[in-house]
């Protein structure tokens, strides 16, 4: 247990010592999206009755930032340690694959939540966002971040170079988050794109998260929960089996 706690503390300190870059910067980015989109889209039809565009946008932006940063935390920590060689310090001790997985994923969830809180802290100055059910908000926030953290561990283990992580982020994570209904309700999309969005797991995370605020969603919140939890469990199983096999770490 002390091994796990130590690794968790180290992973949290790793991003916290550079919080300006790892927490403040994504909050600023989200704020810019919010200001620009809210201004441009001010006259657009509301996604849900009684909810204006700014209110609709804030939870989606918060979730998008949380997901991207949870992924960035595990993937960049691992690739940095692998390239600089200091991954050795955690390969020599008697840490188990569960210790490794738990500490990396939990630290990334903490960073994701810190970024999410930051976005809300800024968002409340722009629009009032109601809270329908705090439990759903927390469940989707934690599960979404944990899923992305596990995906980040997989990417970090697989990649041998920084540009491979960047490619993963730019060609997979970014398109999936942007096309998940952060900026719009998928009901406003043409039929084909609407159906395609249902294959995007990120859509369910954002839709479920938004349900926690408005009590309204594009699909059933239970379906969103099932998809998010299922994706999290599948990716965790893959992560743990890679860690147990020593994939690219102990060869």
């Amino acid at each position: 247990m002390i091994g796990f706690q130590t690794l968790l503390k180290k992973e949290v300190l790793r991003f916290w010592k550079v919080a300006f870059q790892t927490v403040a910067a994504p909050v600023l980015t989200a704020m810019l999206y919010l200001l620009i989109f809210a201004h441009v889209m001010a006259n657009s039809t509301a996604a849900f009755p009684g909810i204006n565009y700014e209110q609709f946008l804030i939870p989606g932006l918060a979730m998008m930032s949380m997901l991207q940063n949870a992924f960035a935390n595990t993937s960049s920590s691992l690739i940095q340690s692998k390239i600089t060689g200091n991954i050795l310090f955690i390969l020599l001790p008697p840490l188990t694959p569960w210790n490794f997985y738990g500490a990396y994923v939990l630290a990334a969830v903490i960073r994701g939540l810190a970024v999410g809180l930051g976005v809300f802290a800024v968002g409340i100055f722009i629009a009032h966002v109601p809270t329908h059910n705090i439990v759903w908000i927390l469940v989707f926030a934690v599960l979404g971040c944990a899923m992305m953290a596990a995906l980040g561990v997989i990417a970090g283990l697989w990649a041998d170079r920084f540009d491979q992580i960047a490619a993963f982020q730019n060609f997979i994570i970014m398109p999936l988050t942007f096309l998940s209904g952060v900026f719009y309700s998928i009901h406003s999309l043409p039929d084909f794109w609407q159906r395609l969005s249902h294959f995007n797991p990120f859509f369910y995370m954002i839709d479920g998260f938004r349900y926690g605020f408005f009590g309204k969603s594009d699909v059933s919140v239970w379906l969103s929960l099932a998809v998010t939890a299922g994706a999290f469990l599948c990716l965790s199983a893959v992560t743990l089996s890679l860690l147990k096999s020593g994939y690219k770490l102990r060869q």
Partner: protein
Amino acid sequence: MTYAIDVQNVEKKYGSFTALAGISLRVEQGEFFALLGPNGAGKTTLISILAGLTRADAGTLQVMGHDVVADYQAARRALGIVPQEIVFDPFFSVRETLQFQAGYFGIARTPALDSWIDELLAKLSLTDKADKNMRQLSGGMKRRVLVAQALVHRPPVIVLDEPTAGVDVELRQTLWGFIRELNAKGHTILLTTHYLEEAQQLCSRIAMMKLGRIVAMDTTEHLLSAFSERVLRVKLVAELPTSLLALRIRQEGINENSWHTFSIHDYNEVEILLSRIREAGATITNLEVTEPELEEVFVKIMNQGDSVPNATEQSIYPRGINP
């Protein structure tokens, strides 16, 4: 009795390259053991497998009786590794680095740990650097931190993989003083180095590797006496008198500038040889007695390669041990 390190028939291939072609060796508890060999002999591969950083294709390895795969947690707790490459975590200070490393090994932050860290810092002359970020340290200082990191969980078995490569005299002396002290307290030391005089001075037993095999393994004393000798070398004003030619084992240089070398077993023979030279009417201009050197043993064994007679089979067990 439990061996500190017990390696049996370990094989490792990388594609078509054979890094280890069936290595067996046993290191007793409390030994100071050297693993020598040219680059690419397989020393670091063997250490990596022992540390669990690499997996063997065949064979078994135990540290203090714990299998490095089946019982990896106990095996890793028993092992402290100082890696060859200088690596560090740029986010943390020296003290934080050591606290984290202890934590990874399951050691709680107690006053006992803090005082052990202080002691390690003092022994390795790092006290004034304790709160400096790792990035601010010179290469030699970073290497000291790596040594401290390997020792922070007080492992009974310590492996040093070329710890003095490119290191200044001061660190070498500090390091060897400390490692000797740990050895005297009962820690087992496994050392790889290209500085053969270090191995000769420090280690009681030596294994030599070449192309993934052990080509010689014996006590330092036996290796020296079997492959090297103590010699008397003299320079004379003129040629060596013919009466002494039969005793000379080699000549280096020509005419008056030649060194004439004679084998001697003990120092009494120096006196006898010198008197015979004098009696033959020769005048000595220069003289030296050279002790057996591991470098000579190493070169001879590496040149013989795999044909060293039964070196592996005969001495796989420490002397006096009946397997």
